[in-house]
């Protein structure tokens, strides 16, 4: 049974000082699954990932990663997992090739030269192999880090915001590559702040203040929140947005370009409010499917309230 799970952790807790950074986190990632990990800044995503690959010891709770215990068998885990840190963590005073070569040596890879050459080719940096890594642009560093953490063909990838600062083209290539890997049975846990990336994941988890709020496929996550959303097309959306806030049934208003999304849990109340609005000239209101982004913004707001409530 556990063979089907790449990550299986239960009740993970981690505090720093008196701050509960990860709070009773349980998470299951199946083999061959791309699992998206979302949450606002400082919600504990990086900390959770570090717990899962044995870089931090949990205060309580535990579980397995690729079938190995995350506390006792971290050496086994490290051999089989590719971890990409959020902050660039390769050696800036080594060249691109030297970095890849060093990584290959640390994983005791046979046929090192060929592997490194192939990686450079794939990366499109073969001609710049002798460039110092520190002189690469941010996006290129990110792409190098990605390539380097996949060099030893890990069975599980833990990617902490791998595409931050990467251009759309490279991002698309990267996600195509991820899906190819997943099809080959490689599991991926990827944290991101991008909605389009969240939509490309097989499963999602949303974490805030160290607590896992929802977990499941995109549709499940949306359905579970039972939100109703209307799209308002009009001029002067930001004034409208302010005006709508606090109206009966309106829980959140978000401007997406030329459209305003109005969301609430009480469908009837929200419908009544927007019906009154729809009578204004030059304004079009339509009911739409709630998107992931609406859901996440909603979750974030709710958890802030919970957190503040729990504290007082």
């Amino acid at each position: 049974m556990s063979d089907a799970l790449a990550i299986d952790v239960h009740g993970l807790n981690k505090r720093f000082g008196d701050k509960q950074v990860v709070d009773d986190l349980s998470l299951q990632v199946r083999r061959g699954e791309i699992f998206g990990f979302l949450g606002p800044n400082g919600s504990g995503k990086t900390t959770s990932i570090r717990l899962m690959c044995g870089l931090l010891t949990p205060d309580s709770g535990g579980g397995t990663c690729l079938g190995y215990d995350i506390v006792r068998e971290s050496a086994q885990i490290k051999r089989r997992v590719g971890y990409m840190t959020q902050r660039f963590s390769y050696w800036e005073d080594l060249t691109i090739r030297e970095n890849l070569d060093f990584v290959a040596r640390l994983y005791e890879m046979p046929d090192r030269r060929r592997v490194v050459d192939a990686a450079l080719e794939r990366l499109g940096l073969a001609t710049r192999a002798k460039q110092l890594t520190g002189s690469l642009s941010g996006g290129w560093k990110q792409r190098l880090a990605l390539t380097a953490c996949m060099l030893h063909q890990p069975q599980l990838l833990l990617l902490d915001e791998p595409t931050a600062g990467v251009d759309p083209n490279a991002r698309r290539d990267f996600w195509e590559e991820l899906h190819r890997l997943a099809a080959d049975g490689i599991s991926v846990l990827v944290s991101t702040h991008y909605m389009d990336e969240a939509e490309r994941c097989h499963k999602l988890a949303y974490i805030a203040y160290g607590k896992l709020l929802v977990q499941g496929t995109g549709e499940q996550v949306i359905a579970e929140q039972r939100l109703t959303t209307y799209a308002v097309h009009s001029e002067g959306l930001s004034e409208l947005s302010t005006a709508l806030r606090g109206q009966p049934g309106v829980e959140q208003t978000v401007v997406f370009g030329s459209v305003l999304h109005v969301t609430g849990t009480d469908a009837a109340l929200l419908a009544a409010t927007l019906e009154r609005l729809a009578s204004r000239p030059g304004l079009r209101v339509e009911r739409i499917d709630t998107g992931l982004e609406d859901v996440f913004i909603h979750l974030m707001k709710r958890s802030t309230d919970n957190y503040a409530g729990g504290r007082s």
Partner: protein
Amino acid sequence: MTLSGFSFARWWGVVLKEFLQLRRDRVTFAMIVGIPIVQLALFGFAINSDPRHLPTAVISADHSEFTRSLVAAMQNSSYFDITETLPDEQAGRDALARGRVQFVLNIPADFTRRLLRGERPAVLLEADATDPQATGMALSTVSQLVSSVAQKDLRGPLAPLAGGEPPFEIRVHRLYNPEGITQYNIVPGLMGVILTMTLVMMTGLAMTRERERGTMENLLSTPVRPVEVMSGKIVPYIVIGLIQASIILLAARWVFGVPFVGSVIAIYLAALLFIAANLTVGIAMSSLAKNQLQAMQMTMFYFLPNILLSGFMFPFAGMPQWAQWIASVLPLTYFNRLIRGIVLKGNGWLDLWPDIWPLAVFTLVVMTMAVRFYRRTLD
């Protein structure tokens, strides 16, 4: 746990990486060459002091009132501490070579008889003059000793002997550094000081640098083991230490004209062991320190007792007991004895052994501690 599964490939990877990084680090490179030269220039001058209570052995073939009085007078001068009585000259030479005593007083068999006959006999005072400061003041009191003994003991019928010329003489024999040239002692001593300072500092930064640059998280997420990282990181510095040692040896020989009595191979072997000892200290501090600043502070904390108590600045024998206790756990203390013993006295392996094994033990103990201190997680 730490030694099982040691991978030569991973270790070699770390070694190569460190060499590459070092090659690109201009500042460190400048330090490697610059520090020995600056220090040599600065410490070319002697540091003055007035050590007392220097261990002295007595070889006496003549036991009379006068010889007892002479020995007592030496003891009373507070410069000499009579620590042992030896059977013959060979034993005296050994004690000097190993640094057990600073002086050997040799009283010939017919001393009293010849004194009473007014023949102005001599006693021989052999001094380990490797460190001229250690012996200088003591030796300058010797002539006063003679007259005070004469005045006290040669009375009554013997009084005529006390007047006029001194009734006997203390012939001083400076061994190893007969001209009492301070540089002969300081320059080989500097080798240990420079190696301590640069090596502990550079390796002290080795782990904290990884931590501050964020690369530690990466390193920790790979299968590389603590012992591979640590030993791999010190290899380049062994080479650096040997380069520095060579610079100092060349300067000692050709700039300061220090005579090399002992074997160069012995010097390099002693240096190698000492370098290893310092590197383990540095790497241990590095794993303990939270950041580079802390590592620097720890280096200074380690460096001060080394330079003050190891016998480099003040003669070891002249220090109070508690200071000697502290000094006896510092590698520099042993290295100072080794290097001076080899360069100036030409000591052989048997003489060196008492100072070699403590260095080896020190290195092993500290390396074990360093691997213990290595943080395997980011907690």
